């Protein structure tokens, strides 16, 4: 089988590095070029030291790009929508990991991103990148937009409940605890070690942009009201979403189990984690480091109809590069787990 020749545009960031790590060991993919304007001519391992002795690849400039089978775009938000008309001449397929093409409604984009989308005509050409929701469309897609990390954890936790009309859609509250790698690899005063270490920083109590994706993807006809807050904590990778919803009927936990099993029983990367004993009774981000799993647990309040859903991922994997590779596998008819088999580490 001929390998799919792929190029990663904007490959010096954390997401790009994670994609390179995965693609180097993918049996049906070959990395043709990786670009970074700040690392042109340098070996990949200079930016991604974990890849030392794994590749002789060097960074190119975006101006040196050659044609290939698929482009992964890991450019900063807002940059891809300006460059994509040129970039799509280079490859018939594109997977964009930025936020530029996640939304299909320009008004929703304007509302949450506070700026006008400059490539509206392409917005509807992209398939939203969560395979568990869009697998069939991905099989024939040419353009896929990977979902936001916090949106991914939230959507996967909520999807079975909203789809099956089990909860009050007007009363959904999500608190995400996130690791520092969500902020990318550019340092700032806020990421200076004495300031950042040990901090529990409420960085987006309201107005988080990923809310827009949640509203779009969980739209089953009824108006949703989603209250999303984000807190960065002292970990590097990981998202833990704690989601509070209210059941329409007085369901038992066993009924909730059945709903999640119905929706996700055959999903290769979703696990229901809910145990009564042991150290890991509910999803735990550190066990998911470098894996493509989304672990989901839940607990019903004994005294009310409140259901608490706990959903966790590695933001750089299921929340970015892993999700993108899963989509790549689906687009090309490869076994969905190819290159994503790593089960994580314990202890860690």
């Amino acid at each position, binding site marked *: 089988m001929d390998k799919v020749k792929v190029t990663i545009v904007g490959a010096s960031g954390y997401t790009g590095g994670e994609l390179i790590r995965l693609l180097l060991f993918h049996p049906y993919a070959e990395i043709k070029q990786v670009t970074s304007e700040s690392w042109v001519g340098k070996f990949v391992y200079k930016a991604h030291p974990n890849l030392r002795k794994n590749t002789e690849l060097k960074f190119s400039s975006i101006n040196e790009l050659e044609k290939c089978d698929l482009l992964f775009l890991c450019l900063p938000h807002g940059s891809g929508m300006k460059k994509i008309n040129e970039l799509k001449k280079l490859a018939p397929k594109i997977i964009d990991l930025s936020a530029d093409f996640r939304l299909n409604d320009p008004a929703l984009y304007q509302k949450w991103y506070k700026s006008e989308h400059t490539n509206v005509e392409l917005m509807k050409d992209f398939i939203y990148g969560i395979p568990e929701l869009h697998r069939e469309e991905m099989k024939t897609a040419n353009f896929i937009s990977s979902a936001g990390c916090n949106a991914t954890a939230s959507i996967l936790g909520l999807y079975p409940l909203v789809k099956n009309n089990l909860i009050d859609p007007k009363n959904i509250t999500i608190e995400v605890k996130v690791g520092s790698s969500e902020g990318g690899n550019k340092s700032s005063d806020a990421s200076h070690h004495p300031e950042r270490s040990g901090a529990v920083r409420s960085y987006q109590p309201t107005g988080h942009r990923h809310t827009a994706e949640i509203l779009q993807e969980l739209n089953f006809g009824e108006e949703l009201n989603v209250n999303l807050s984000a807190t960065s904590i002292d970990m590097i990778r990981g998202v833990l979403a704690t989601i509070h919803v209210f059941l329409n009927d007085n369901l038992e*936990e*066993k*009924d909730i*189990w*059945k709903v999640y*099993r119905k929706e996700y029983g055959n999903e290769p990367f979703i696990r*229901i984690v*809910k*145990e*009564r*004993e*042991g150290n890991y009774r509910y999803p735990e981000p550190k066990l998911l480091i470098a894996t493509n799993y989304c672990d989901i647990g839940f607990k019903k309040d004994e005294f009310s109809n409140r259901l608490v859903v706990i959903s966790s991922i590695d933001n750089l994997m299921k929340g970015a590069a892993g999700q993108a590779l899963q989509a790549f596998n689906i687009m090309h008819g490869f076994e969905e787990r190819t290159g994503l088999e790593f089960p994580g580490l314990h202890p860690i």
Partner: protein
Amino acid sequence: MKAECPVCGAEIEFAEDTVQGELLECSECGTELEVVSTDPPKVEEAPQEEEDWGQ
């Protein structure tokens, strides 16, 4: 012979030699279950030690 897990509703398959009083573990939710009847097949939650991590 199949019973239903009382916690998560998963099917619990009995081996041919399963006997009453035997302890099994649900493969879905990990709950330890006690076989209370083989005909009809029925399991209940096995007693567990409670933990409270609050202060």
